């Protein structure tokens, strides 16, 4: 990585993300119509759901790179996988916090057990917190191998958790995406899509930053080893 390409890629991603974010915020607050039932509170929705999907995307990436690691045993796949989990957890924390604020705004309490998304993301947080506990319990090759296996198993747990909470049939949450397609008018849907793209952009940007940092760290460590050996 001694060329400028990663840096340039990061600049491109970050700029696009910044633009998308600005566009999304503008659109959500100044263009999208206010929801008839929920009023302005519904605007929370745009980023709350976008970040939720972003978090799941991050965990999917982690799972995919976990599978890749098991096939390739290449350390870089493990790097991507664990970085993605970290970002996923960060997003999941935001989902739970923003979801709690939404619950307070909509139902008057800071927590509800009847919202499948809120409960699922709490479970998801615990699931992936365990990922890091597992990681720190092992070293070297085993750490990477176990992390990869768990990233796959944990990702399988996510839809299972979501559906188990759903099946426990007692939610009040307004369903946004029904089987017949989104029951949101197009004027809202488009800004939802923009927000989602912005969040995906944030994910990609942070991924690149993190991976670059790790490479810098590793390069420094290599130098250190060399210098200490020569001393």
């Amino acid at each position, binding site marked *: 990585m001694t060329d400028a390409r990663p840096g340039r890629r990061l600049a491109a991603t970050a700029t696009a993300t910044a633009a998308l974010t600005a566009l999304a915020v503008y659109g959500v607050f100044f263009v999208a119509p206010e929801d008839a039932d929920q009023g302005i*509170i519904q605007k929370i929705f745009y980023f709350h759901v976008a970040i939720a999907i972003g978090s799941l995307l991050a965990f999917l990436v982690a799972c995919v790179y976990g599978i890749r690691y098991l096939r390739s045993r290449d350390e870089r796949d493990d790097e991507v996988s664990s970085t993605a989990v970290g970002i996923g957890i960060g997003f999941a924390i*935001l989902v739970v916090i923003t979801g709690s604020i939404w619950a307070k705004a909509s139902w008057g309490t800071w927590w509800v057990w009847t919202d499948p998304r809120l409960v699922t993301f709490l479970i998801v947080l615990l699931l992936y917190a365990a990922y890091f506990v597992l990681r720190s319990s092992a070293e070297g090759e085993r750490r990477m191998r176990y992390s990869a296996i768990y990233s796959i198993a944990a990702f399988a747990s996510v839809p299972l958790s979501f559906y188990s909470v759903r099946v426990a049939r007692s939610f009040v949450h307004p369903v946004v995406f029904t089987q017949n397609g989104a029951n949101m008018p197009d004027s809202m849907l488009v800004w939802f899509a923009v927000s989602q793209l912005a969040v995906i952009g944030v994910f990609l940007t942070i991924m690149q930053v993190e991976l670059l940092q790790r490479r810098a760290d590793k390069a420094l460590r290599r130098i250190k080893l060399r210098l200490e050996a020569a*001393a």
Partner: protein
Amino acid sequence: MSTGAQYVVAVYGVVLFGLLMYVLVLGLRTARLAREAELLARLAEREDEARRAPEPAATP
């Protein structure tokens, strides 16, 4: 501002806060990297000097 709007602002504020916290983490990490790089640079320079200057005689 209506209470509804306050909650909306709170949510976007939380997201912004989260991003800023991440910037903080990045900053701390960069500071550590810079420190280590500086230390290594000094170590390398010291090595260079030690190699250039003739070794002082062990016994007078």
